[in-house]
Each structure stands twice: as C-alpha cells, then as structure tokens.
C-alpha cells in the first residue's frame, strides 16, 4: 500500500537541493506519530499487563505498571472454572462457517454485480450493511424460541452471515471490477460458459482480494457480541460473550477479565501482524466502493 506519487525528475532534483536535516525528516514525524500510537499501544499493554498481575497489584493505588511477580493464575482460572476452550471452539466454528458460506455465495454475487453492472443489487447489499442488526435480531430471537433452537450454533452462524456476506460482496465487487475483461472474452470465444470463466479465470486472478475478504469477514464475525449474547445459551456461547460475563458489577473480577480479553484479541492481533497488507487492502477496497 505504500504507493508514492510519481515525481518528475525536476521535482526530485528540487527536493534533493532543499532536503532538510535528517532530524526533521525522521525525528519530527516519528514524534508526532508517537503522539497517536502511544495511546493505542498503551491500552493493549495495559490489558496484557493486568492479566499477569496479582490481585493485590490489580487493585493497588497508584496502579501497577509492571508486575513484580507475574502470575498466570487468571489464565488457569479461566480454563478451570468454565469450558473456555469450548467457547473458543464455538467462536471458531461460527466464524469459519459464516465466512465460508459468505464466500461461497458472495463471490459469484460480487462477480455478477461487477460484470453485468447490477447497480441496484449492489445497493441492496449496502442496505444490508446499513440495517441495524437488532432490527432482524428480534424476529430471529422469536423464531429461534419457537423452533426450539434457542441454544444452537446453527442460528448464530446463520445470523453471522449477515455480517460476512455484505462485507465479502462489497470487497469483491471492487476487485472484480478492476479485472480486465479481455481474458474472459477470449475464454467465451473458446466456448467457456459464464460459470467456467468465473471459476477458472476470474477467481484465480482475484486471489489477493479473496484473502483480504476472508480475513476481514472472519475478524468481524469473531468480534461480534450482540448475536450470541441474545441467541446463545450455555452450549453456544461465543468468546466475546464469555469476556463480557467476566464483568460482574458487585466485585471487580479484573484478573480473569483481562486474561479473557487478551485471549479473545490474541488471534486477530496475530493475524493482523501476518496479513497486514491484505487487511489494509480489504479495508480500503471495501470502504472505497461504498
């Protein structure tokens, strides 16, 4: 994503002549960016640091910035006191299924919208993105109750597709539109039908976009709290709901809370480090087409 503007040789020469001191070109932007970055990093530092502090340190005043004797007590408590791994698995199953289904039906839809310029359909999927989740959640709450599916991953997954599908479609429209049509036209001449030229020619060419869409869709599903909070039960709880459950207003259960918060954020943070480029591409492509 670090595309720099094309500069004429004259401008480059002019820049070189008046090039300021390295202190100005490096130190000043570094300091100003630090002004933005420090508060960002501090919250994550605080979360991780608190998850390793002892109870005394957590409730100490002034606050403890660095634990004198770090403990893993809160992490082992999470594993002992509740089926934490089960909830992690639930989140995983919901995220993977919602992303896979979203991709399977969103990819052809995005292709058709881009190739046959189905603008009104793309608006329809934008409305899906705009609709407040709670507005279709209430009917689904009632349906789930009536069908006796109150505590099932199936309904939660189905609803999570409302997060992944519009996102995938919007990201992929951009990538398919950017694709030159020549190859597909040649394929049509050679006797490929629309489905074949989609699956055999277009899809392999937009792989970077697909990776971006998969990562973003999964993250959005992983982070969602509302759907499982309303429709989940003891067997179908997802991680964000578990994290929320750590907060009881009567007593400050902050150690386990920090540990659970760290664990729910860990996969997306690690994923961000690995797939940083694709993530940025997906975020900007999805937004630019909006």
């Amino acid at each position, binding site marked *: 994503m670090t595309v720099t503007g094309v500069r004429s040789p004259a401008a480059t020469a002019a820049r070189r002549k008046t090039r300021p001191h390295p202190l100005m070109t490096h130190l000043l932007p570094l300091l100003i960016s630090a002004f933005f970055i420090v508060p960002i990093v501090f919250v994550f530092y605080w979360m991780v640091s608190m998850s390793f502090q002892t109870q005394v340190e957590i409730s100490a*005043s002034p*606050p403890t910035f660095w634990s004198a004797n770090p403990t893993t007590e809160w992490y082992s408590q999470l594993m002992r006191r509740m089926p934490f791994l089960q909830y992690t698995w639930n989140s995983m199953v919901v995220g993977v299924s919602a992303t896979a289904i979203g991709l399977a039906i969103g990819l052809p839809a995005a*292709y058709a919208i881009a190739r046959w310029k189905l603008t009104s359909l793309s608006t329809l999927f934008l409305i899906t993105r705009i609709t407040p989740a709670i507005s279709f959640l*209430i009917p689904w709450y009632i349906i789930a109750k009536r069908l006796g599916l109150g505590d099932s991953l199936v309904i939660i997954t189905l609803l999570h597709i409302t997060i992944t599908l519009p996102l995938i479609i919007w990201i992929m429209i951009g990538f398919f539109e950017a694709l030159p049509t020549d190859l597909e036209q040649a394929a049509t001449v050679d006797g490929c039908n629309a489905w074949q030229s989609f699956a055999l020619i277009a899809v392999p060419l937009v792989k970077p976009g697909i990776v971006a869409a998969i990562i973003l869709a999964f993250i959005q599903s992983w982070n969602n709290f509302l759907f499982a909070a309303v429709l989940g039960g003891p067997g179908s709880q997802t991680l964000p709901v578990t994290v929320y459950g750590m*907060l009881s207003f009567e007593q400050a259960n902050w150690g386990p*809370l920090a540990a659970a*918060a760290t664990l729910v954020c860990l996969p997306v943070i690690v994923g*961000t480090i690995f797939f940083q480029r694709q993530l940025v591409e997906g975020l900007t492509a999805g937004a630019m087409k909006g």
Partner: protein
Amino acid sequence: MTTSPLPGTAVRRAKRRPAAPILFVLPALLLTVIVIAFPLGYTLYQSMTNWVITSPNPPKFIGLANYAELLRDQRAMQSLVRTLLITVCSVSLQMVLGVAMALVMNKHFFGRGLFRTLALFPVVATPVAISLIFVTMMNPQTGVLNHFLTSLGLSAQQWIYAEKSVLPALILVDTWQWTPFVMLIALAGLATLPSEPYEAAKIDGATAWQTFWGITLPMLMPSLFVALLFRAIDTLKLFDTIYAMTQGGPGTASETINLYLYTLSFNYFRMGYASSMVIALLVLVLGITLLLIRARKLAEDRS
C-alpha cells in the same frame, strides 16, 4: 440501460445476457431475504400490534398507535438526541484526528511500517474486550486514567460513573477505536493524489498550511466522504461498546436508541412497541445515509 449504437451489439448483448447473472446472485439474494428482509417485514407487521411476550392475551392489531406513542415517549426522544450527539461528536473527532494521523504517517520516516501495523490493532480488536479494559482504566479509585490526570495536576474524573461525563467517556473510547480506520482510508486516498498540483504550489511558494487547505483536502474529499459515511452508519448503530461499558447507565444517561430498543425487547418484552422503534431506527439510519450520499452528489456537481 442505454440504447445500443448498433443492432449487432444489441444481438450480441442479448446473446451474452443469459440467465447467468440471476443464477450467480440468487443464493446471496435468497439468503438476504430469508435472514433480513423477511424478518423486517414481520417486524413491520408486529409494530402495529400490542404484543407483549409475557402477556397472556394474544396480540391485537392496533394500527399506528405504537408510532404515536413513540413520538410522545420522552425516553425515546432523549435516546435519539444522545445517539445523534454521540455520532456527531465521535465522527467529527475521528475525521479530524484520522486525517492528521494520515498526514504524518504518509511521510517516510524510520519506524513508519511498525507504527502503521500498530495503528491497525484497535480496528481489529474485539470491541467488547477493549470496552471492558477501558472500564477498568476508568475506575475512579484505582483506574490508570485518573492516575495520569492527577499526576499531571488535573482533577480526577468519574468517567462512565457520572451522568455528565459518561457520554464524553464513551465518545473517547469510540474515537480511540476508530480514528485509525479513518487514517487508513485517508492514507489510501493520499497515495492516489497526483503530484503536479504540489509542484505548482511549490513554485508559487505556497506554505504547507495553504497547500493542505488548497490542494490536499479538496482532492482527498472523496475518500474522506467514504470514511465519514461508514463511521456515521456504524456509530448510529453502536451497541457493543455502550452495552459492555454502561448498559445505558448511570440511570439512562448513556441510553441510545439501540440500547433502549434492547431494553424494551429483552427486559420489558414489549415486542410490538419495540418493533415500531426498530422501523424508526432503520428509517433514521437509511435517511441519514441517503442524506450523506445526496450531500456528496451536490458537492461533486458544484466542483
């Protein structure tokens, strides 16, 4: 569609326009209808009944009575004002800070790559987890934020625990989480700007400030508009953060439409009345979105 210039093109287009597009879109369309459109239609019907889940009486059709009640409902009106207030404040803060952040991050300096990656963290982190960490940080007695304030000689705050400071505190958290998103979009926009106007400005001896207002900002507008649109939509719908941090409290001081709606449905079980609010919220979010899109068209036509 436009008329084809040549009859041959029309024939070819007719030939190349088989059932394929419909088949490609059909699964996505069906799923959207089943999961969203159908429930919404059902909600529209419910909004005209007096259904309460816990009531033994069967729901009765009451026409637009719920909507009339909505207009008289002080709590609903206050939650609407709060929703708009949070949206306007959060989004403007995020736009200003996000653009400033992008301008700095657009420079080539040592450590930029690392900083850009770190800046992505809030955008991808689980909102509920982050919100709860902020709750611990905002604790009036042991919280680290008050520790910072007092060591700077400023007075300690009640943050989310007082009626007058709860909305600013929530705006702070939302801004912390989403400013980097605006930065990202602005950075992508900056990368596409042509260099000629800058060279001309340099020759004319324009100051950095003049260049920003005269060139960068106007050319960046399309990207910024998209960021604005997405942030406005998401902030109007904001739920996780407020629910996790305050549940609408203290009292109802941070209750937004979404929160009130949640209380009506899942605490009071007034499904009929809540449904009328769902429809109102949907109309509001759609209306504001269309308004913003309209505003962009007008701005584009003028320039």
